[in-house]
């Protein structure tokens, strides 16, 4: 390790001159290459959140059901009866663009490890995907690879993939987004954390052997792409879902004994970040004997071992008297577990190779003096394009929306995911605004959803983020749940650009505001920046993953309908068409997104919640979002293969498009039993009106147009099948 640290090496490690000076100051000397490498990954945007930390701190993270907020491997909420839900969403954007199959697969693997590391058995996976324009030459293969990667990994491990979203837009042509969310179940008295404790306690490595794959993955995910970024392929890790399954079962088995003090998966920045984070949380020092690290290849250097991102590896601190038991359990599952080091009281990370000290770093200062930037931000001024005349063939527009890539049935994707393994999937997100998963062996369930409308966020990141939070809240309510908390996955461009930093700050502000108003805290999250290629940034995409509780299984609603049932609209319709799908179909992309009135949002939500949980009147429910009433009703018809008759209110007859396609917030469609007297439940401040009934074989706006439901189904299924023929 005698290499001279040149400016070029510093640059290659994505460190600024200032950061390098700070490194020298912390060490009181020059770092060697191994030490520089460790600093570079620990201080990478991906691991240190240096551009966003200042703002993320402002998010509300506490609540009466929150057991564990951000800072651990995943967030945890209490759902009663000693049951707790562990969940988090994480991005694997950069690797998935370079190698879609492995990038997406390892994204799923990583987030599942974050969940079972805490003692939870994963019970559901979701994913939020963004691809480029379908006509872009890369899009088709990226879509195929990502979907197969997600499916093959989750299917093999045996965790149902129950929902998600998939959206195409040219801004993602060279930077796709793959955000994976995992939800797990744990006994709230048997949660495992990552705080290392006990001087002298052994550090155990278990799982795949360390290879040269993924070295500098975290640094890659912290830089912009250029045209030759696909040359980064060696930085993408390769997934082994079978190994993950063995790790999952063996760790859960070991956790049933009183053996583990702390446990952490080796995710981004591998052995480095896992050992540093555990030691830093416990104010410990660490000695690692690197010759003991199981390696896949010969002659791996300490630098490679510390920075490798080989998947499916865990690091454990165990009680010394439980060593034998630990090795026995791992052996039963055919896994190699090795003691690679021990905890010390020095506060330093001491790395030895064959008894020679090859690196020594102070743990706390390295973790805690990670740079925190208050990067400058500025709103980008927009040019307003002149308004075009709107065509008025509403029937055609609705058909166009339902056959467009973004609003076509996602069956082609969804069928590649095992959604029914574990036997607890009550509703997948194909049949409900939120997926509903039974808590095994009980009469309760969790509802899970993920959402973001980047078109709104592009125009106004604050309102866009507010809407993403509000929509996830509504999705949970519409599925019959009481919303509890969220995880957020913030995907943006290069934060060193003022206008991107503006988007980031505004979006976080929006999430903060919405979460506070809805009493809906953030318990975990992930930030993915530098989603740019050749200076072109993605649209701001703060994806929100929401989780709620359904106390009685019969309250799980989803898109159910019944012949002759009444259809009610909850919430006020103004007819906001700017940025709506209706406008997008006319290639109009300007104007503000609809505003969220949080007082109304809460009132309407609480009303629907009460109606579902306290009466037997509600058959099904669907929230209103993109595409407004028209798309929502069409989705209900398609899902149930039943017709609907609704009448456009008189005051909208001169402008029916406002009623059919307006995207005003805080609204729901309720399908209500024919004889149910809803009147006596109506509250003063909640706007509710009957708009029609379930009947016939048409989606019929009685005073405007009608489409046979079987045509809707055909249209809705067409695009994916033709595109991927």
């Amino acid at each position, binding site marked *: 390790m005698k290499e001279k640290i040149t400016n070029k090496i510093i640059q290659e490690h994505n460190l600024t001159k200032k950061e390098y000076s700070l490194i020298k100051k912390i060490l009181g000397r020059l770092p060697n290459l191994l030490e520089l490498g460790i600093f570079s990954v620990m201080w990478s945007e991906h691991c240190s959140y240096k551009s966003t930390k200042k703002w993320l701190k402002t998010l509300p993270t506490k609540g009466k059901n929150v057991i564990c907020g951000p800072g651990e491997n995943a967030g945890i909420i209490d759902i009663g009866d000693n049951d707790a839900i562990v969940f988090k969403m994480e991005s694997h954007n950069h690797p998935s663009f370079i190698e879609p199959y492995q990038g997406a697969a390892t994204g799923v693997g990583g987030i599942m490890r974050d969940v079972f590391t805490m003692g939870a058995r994963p019970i559901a996976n979701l994913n939020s995907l963004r691809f480029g324009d379908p006509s872009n030459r890369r899009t088709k293969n990226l879509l195929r690879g990502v979907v197969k990667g997600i499916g093959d990994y989750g299917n*093999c491990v*045996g965790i149902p993939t129950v929902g998600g979203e998939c959206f195409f837009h040219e801004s993602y042509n060279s930077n796709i987004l793959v955000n994976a969310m995992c939800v797990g179940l744990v006994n709230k008295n048997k949660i495992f954390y990552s705080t290392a404790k006990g001087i002298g306690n052994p550090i155990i490595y278990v799982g795949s052997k360390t290879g040269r794959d993924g070295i500098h993955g975290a640094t890659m995910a912290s830089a912009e792409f250029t045209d030759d970024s696909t040359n980064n392929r060696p930085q993408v890790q390769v997934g082994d879902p*079978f190994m993950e399954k063995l790790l999952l079962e063996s760790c859960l088995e070991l956790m049933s004994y009183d053996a583990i003090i702390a446990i952490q998966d080796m995710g981004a920045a591998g052995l480095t970040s896992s050992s540093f984070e555990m030691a830093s949380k416990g104010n410990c020092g660490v000695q690692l004997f690197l010759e003991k690290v199981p390696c896949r290849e010969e002659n791996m250097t300490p630098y490679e071992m510390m920075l490798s991102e080989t998947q499916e590896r865990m690091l454990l601190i165990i009680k010394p008297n439980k060593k034998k038991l630990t090795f026995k359990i791992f052996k039963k599952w055919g896994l190699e577990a090795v003691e690679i080091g021990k905890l010390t009281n020095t506060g330093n990370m001491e790395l030895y190779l064959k008894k020679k000290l090859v690196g020594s770093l102070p743990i706390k200062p390295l973790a805690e003096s990670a740079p925190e930037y208050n990067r400058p931000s500025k709103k980008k001024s927009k040019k307003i394009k002149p308004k075009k005349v709107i065509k008025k063939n509403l029937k055609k527009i609705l058909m166009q929306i339902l056959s467009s890539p973004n609003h076509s049935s996602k069956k082609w994707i969804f*069928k590649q995911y095992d959604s*029914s*393994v574990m036997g607890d999937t009550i509703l997948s997100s194909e049949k409900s605004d939120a997926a509903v998963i039974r808590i095994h062996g009980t009469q309760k369930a969790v509802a899970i959803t993920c959402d973001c409308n980047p078109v709104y966020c592009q125009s106004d990141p604050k309102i866009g983020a507010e809407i993403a939070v509000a929509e996830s809240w509504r999705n949970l309510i519409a599925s019959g749940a009481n919303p509890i908390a969220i995880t957020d996955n913030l995907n943006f461009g290069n934060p060193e650009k003022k206008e991107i930093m503006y988007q980031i700050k505004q979006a976080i502000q929006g999430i903060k505001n919405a979460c506070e108003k809805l009493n809906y805290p953030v318990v975990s999250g992930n930030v993915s920046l530098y989603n740019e290629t050749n200076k072109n940034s993605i649209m701001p995409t703060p994806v929100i993953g929401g989780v709620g509780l359904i106390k009685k*299984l019969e309250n799980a609603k989803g898109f159910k309908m019944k012949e002759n049932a009444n259809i009610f609209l909850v919430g006020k319709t103004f007819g906001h068409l700017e940025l709506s799908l209706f406008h997008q179909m006319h290639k109009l992309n300007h104007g503000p997104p609809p505003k969220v009135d949080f007082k109304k949002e809460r009132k309407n939500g609480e009303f629907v919640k009460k109606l579902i949980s306290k009466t037997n009147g509600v058959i099904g429910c669907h929230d209103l979002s993109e595409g407004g009433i028209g798309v929502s009703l069409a989705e209900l018809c398609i899902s149930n293969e039943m017709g609907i008759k609704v009448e456009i209110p008189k005051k909208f007859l001169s402008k029916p498009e406002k009623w059919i396609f307006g995207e005003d917030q805080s609204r729901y469609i309720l399908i209500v039993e024919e004889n149910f007297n809803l009147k006596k439940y109506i509250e003063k401040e909640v706007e509710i009106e009957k708009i029609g009934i379930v009947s016939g074989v048409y989606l019929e706006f009685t005073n405007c147009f009608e489409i046979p439901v079987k045509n809707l189904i055909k249209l809705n299924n067409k695009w994916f099948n033709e595109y991927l023929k």
Partner: protein
Amino acid sequence: MKKKKIISIIIFPGSNCDRDLMVAVEKNLGIKPNLVWHQTRNIEKTDIIFLPGGFSYGDYLRAGIIATKSPAISEVIRLSKKGIPIIGICNGFQILTECNLLEGALLKNSNQLFKCEDVFLKVTSKNKFTSSYKKGEIISFPIAHSQGNFFVNDQKLKELEDNEQIIFKYTSKEGSEDKNFNPNGSKNNIAGIVNKKKNVLGLMPHPERAIENFSSRDGKGFFKSIYEML
């Protein structure tokens, strides 16, 4: 409804429907099954053996092939010869064809993709595994596999047909055996078969995922037949 019978479920590393099967057995038969680890060299007493779904040993080669080398499978083969009923579901079916307890092979799905959906099945033969169904009855179970495309040559197919060894076929809701209702390219829409002696059953669809109020409940008949059989 308690019978003192021993039900064994073999667990391989990578099995992932073992819990679902265990729950379904307990719920529908009132018997807690024995979980048998793949390295077991001696299965002393059992009245029936299940091979669950999943990805045994990762299924990185042909699905099911590595499992055939496990000690537990030697026992399964031995016991099958004695007439003990053996049921393989999904990966279990793949293992049973790989160790030649059942005819044919399970190839990759014709579209090369994993497929998970609810399918309709016709109960084409009535025997002890299907005693609770009517012959020709249409039932619904989910499928979830990437290698469920059953293949046999025409001569063997004829034998299967003549001996009434074909138990389940993929059909429409109305019972049409048209290829449009074949989810994976399987020969003659075959979803499940038995061996000549009719004590070994393999099927791709998952009856253990069709026993709840929120799913199809047609799997209950499957477990009821097993209960009657024991």
